[in-house]
């Protein structure tokens, strides 16, 4: 592939003990499960004791550049190659955790994430496609994951009154529950 294009080598979410929640590897060097597990282990060992709660942190090791952020009891990692632009990786990370956070209504913890694992997987799928960055705006990612606009295949302008009313009611109920 074109080497000048910014690429993401992997997206990883680990729990507070370094166990895998969801991962997506795009680089061929992690072809086997054991190589992936080793990588996750070393990443976790190097990052678990740092404080990445406030701002996303960054670490450089082996041949990788890893930006990461701690949210709840989970760690979000984005890996790139050493000569990648740190800020581009950072924007991917930002999209990653913010979109997740939006979709889970700011309830990012292991339990919620596992219960809504489908959303997390979709977020990963919407941000990076085969290593290429597909979208980095968290709101856009979140709305694509929730398939907004695809409900019933009817755009709002063409909805009947009752349909519109029903959806309005649902929206209201949701916002009240929040």
């Amino acid at each position, binding site marked *: 592939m074109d080497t*000048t294009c910014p690429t993401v080598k992997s997206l990883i979410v680990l729990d507070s*003990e370094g*166990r*895998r929640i969801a991962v997506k590897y795009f680089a061929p060097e992690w072809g086997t499960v054991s190589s992936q597990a080793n990588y996750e282990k070393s990443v976790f060992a190097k990052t678990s004791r740092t404080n990445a709660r406030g701002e*996303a942190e960054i670490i450089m090791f082996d041949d990788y550049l890893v930006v990461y952020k701690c949210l709840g009891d989970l760690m979000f990692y984005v890996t790139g190659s050493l000569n990648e632009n740190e800020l581009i990786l950072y924007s991917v990370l930002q999209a990653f955790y913010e979109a997740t956070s939006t979709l889970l209504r700011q309830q990012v913890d292991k339990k919620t994430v596992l219960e809504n694992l489908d959303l997390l*997987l979709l977020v990963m799928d919407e941000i990076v496609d085969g290593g290429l960055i597909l979208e980095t705006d968290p709101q856009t990612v979140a709305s694509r994951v929730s398939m907004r606009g695809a409900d019933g*295949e009817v755009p709002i302008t063409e909805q009947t009154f009752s349909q519109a009313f029903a959806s309005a009611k649902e929206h209201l109920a949701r916002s009240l529950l929040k």
Partner: protein
Amino acid sequence: MAATAQDSLAPLRSGEGKKDEDREEETEYSPFYGIEKGAVLQEARIFHDPNLDPRRCSQVITKLLYLLHQGETFTKKEASDVFFAATKLFQAKDPHLRRMVYLCIKDICPGSDEVIIVTSSLMKDMNSRVELYRSNAVRVLCQIVDGQLLAQIERYLKQAVVDKSPVVAASVLVSAVHLIKHNGEIIKRWVNEVTEAAQSRQPMVQFHAVALLHALRASDRLAVSKLVTQLTRAQVKSPLAQCLLVRYVSQVRRRGWWPAGATGAAAAAAVTAAAAAVTAAAAAAVKGSSEVPVGALREQGKGCVAGRGVQQQQQQQQAAQQKTNSSSSRSGNGRRISSGLTLKHVIADSQPGPGGESRPFYDYLEGCLRHKSESVIFEAARAICNLRDVTARELTPAITVLQLFLSSSKPVLRFAAVRTLNKVAMSHPMAVTNCNIDMESLISDQNRSIATLAITTLLKTGSEGRVDKLLKQIGGFMSDIGDDFKVVVVGAIRSLALKFPAKQRALMGFLASVLREEGGFEYKKAIVQAILELIQEIPDAREAGLGHLCEFIEDCEFTFLSVQVLALLGREGPTTKEPARYIRYIYNRIILENATVRAAAVSALASFGARVPELTARVVVLLKRALYDNDDEVRDRATLHLTQLGGAAGGPEAICPSLQLNLAAMEGALAAYLASDDTQQPFDVSAVPKAAPEAKLPKPQGGLMAAAAAGGTAPAAGGAAAGGAAAAGSAGGAGAAAGYSSQYEAIIKARPEFASLGPLFKSCAPVRLTEEDTEYAIHAVKHVFAEHLVLQFDCTNTIAEQCLEDVSVMLDLAEAPEFEAETVLPLASMPLNEVGQCFSVLRRPAGISAGKMGCVLKFTVKEIDPSTGEAEEEGYEDEYQLEDVEVSGSDYIRPLGLGNFRGAWESLDPATEREDDYGLGPREALQDTVETVMGILGMHPFEDTSVMQPHKETYIVYNSDTVETVMGILGMHPCEGTEAVPPNARSHTVLLAGQLPGDVRALVRLSFGMGADGQVAMKVVSRGDSEEASEAVHAVIQEA
């Protein structure tokens, strides 16, 4: 059931010990507790249910994906079953379920024969009204299709490229980038659509369109430069697309795809295209931009200037534009303005200025520094910093931007900035000094990577005066960083001490204080290595360093390090002012330590006894106590050394033999000895050459950064090795000569005939004596011995029909009367397509003698009978004229590694000093010249001479080329960076050291200066152990 699933996941789980406990807790909240593949596959049968429950189906898909993500694998049949079941789900209308199905198909990735099942469903979705269905269907399809199917759906995909919806367009563009690897032909047909998409207002669409356009042209560099030219002029809004452009620009620059002419051509093409002028000349330029001769463009450019053509032509172009009413009139206004600018570019680019160094697109990069997106700013700053031979002035705006990043609240920004600055500091330390204050505050940064990079940068840029302050800051910080980082810092301190020997006291003090603190083995080892190196390199540091090490071994838990320090004490201690003070430390080891350390201590002690006569009696007393040690080795050593001190068993000299043999040669000689039948004679060790003084290769400043970048240990060896490679590359002759020496040494060693000549002093690079593609390939290698010169002829026969026997080379010494032929060692048979050697041994006069020898190859030819393949018995003698072998002065000079050039220089008798000036004529750059001269002399250059001062403000010819030429002539070895001339330097001093036969040193200071007209003058000042040595240097240069 649960247990089996957990076992299969075992490799992914950490914390083996308390797993069960955790599992118990986990049951409370993990929805996937006890999940098992078989059960989930069973569950997947609900996909076939006619009354689909979308919710439940999504859950099952999630479970399947969870298993996949945890590293579970499905067999082909399982995957195929799941895939078929999932295709049924296309009947459901639920959007979320549909989205999960897409993901599921992508992750399970059906076999090629199954793809056909889903294609129709996906095609239907591709034409759906809902954009998210369209985009996802495109992504899934592109991932699973093969070339044949792709050709069928190409029409739809092509259409999707220009879809109004950004998500659809971006999806198809990304997929195209993936597909281009295997189906480039199909994608190439979309160029028009992709070009249109590149104008999109949607950032991601634009980004991927630009990436795709570039990928389509990646193999055609002219097309790439043209594309870049167009895009940099166009409105690229997307930050990511801007980043791409910055990368393309620097890539084009880096690979030298932008010769002045081509730039002109590309820029001219852009101008004409932008103004849409359809004049004949311009049209020709556009069409044949690749073939337009440089000269023509220059003419064009000059013509513009001469006849106030800029305005005129612009007006013409505008008029033409209005006439043609072209499609680009929409943005014509803005472009017209830019076309004026571009014309200026054309002129600037095609007329090499005084330096011949115009930088197309530097303005563009600089403009990107003001972009509103941080990633673009950083990308541009990084690109500027990585420009080859960037000047200080060009760097300034980039550094300013990075400096702002340094004080950002975001660690990522700080890291990015400090990493880039660290790199810049290697080549342009002065440019980074402005950031020192910000950098200092980063020393205490939470993120240790940032802190370490900041420190190493500071240590690189710091001036001598700031060292103390820096040390104080680092001292406070050392206690709370990990050993990995400490090792990097120690490495930086070491190179700083080598750079500022005057500051060694403070730096040594710092090392000593960190040595006393707690630390792991690697860290302590790094410190000890650093101190050892300082002791060897800086004479002033010796006593203090030894003192610190003595204290260290008093309380050292690492046997390895204790032994190392004791060995050093034994070697260095006796020659210090007060050898007696070390005795106590060493003897304490004999009392207190383990056997290994005790044995080392005994040897060290004996060394004092042998080399310091006044201590001998005391040492003997101490050694006697070790005779009752309960370890064999210690007792044996004590007994041996006592006997030796008593005069027996070789006497005191045998305790610390100065037998510094070249181990490789020793091994070769021993092997040859064992192979020969005559093992009755004792092996003669004196025939083995002494090891050359360990060559101190220049420590690259890069070594440090490499270590810092790796975040690991700072291996001195690694640095030295890298330095070696760099030196071999840059110093040409010198580095290569070292390689030849070791290669040929083994050959010489293998011939017992040369044993009587004494140790080999130097082997020169092989010289070809025959033309390419002749019947025989002959190379000559000159070996210099104390009183002899051995010519080795590497002979190869290339004719299969002939057998050449009794091969020798007859020398005509008419033009080299000082040499006297002694013996000739013929080659019995010249092997076919392999190398065989014959030798001629010449006696050479003392001192340096040059000359030219005519060579004739003599041999007996025997035809090979083609029927039997055997050589005929009768042969005839023949000869073959070879090129002459020249012996020059530089053959007698070999590089010498010295730690302290200035010290050595001062110690040499000023009376031996010889000075001379040479005009080298016009050269393009200094670097060439320096390298050529070093090539001639074959010496070692030294130290980061502060003499090289780039003149910053004035405009200067880039003169590194000249340095390279001079280094090539001398064949010497550049030391510690003096071989590298800073870009644009007008003057430079190189320090070189070499050795002549008989262990005579010759040191040289070469000063280069460059006049405004490119004339280079060289001043050579040399000193030597003898006047002859000093004169020899001049003789060599004069010859060249």
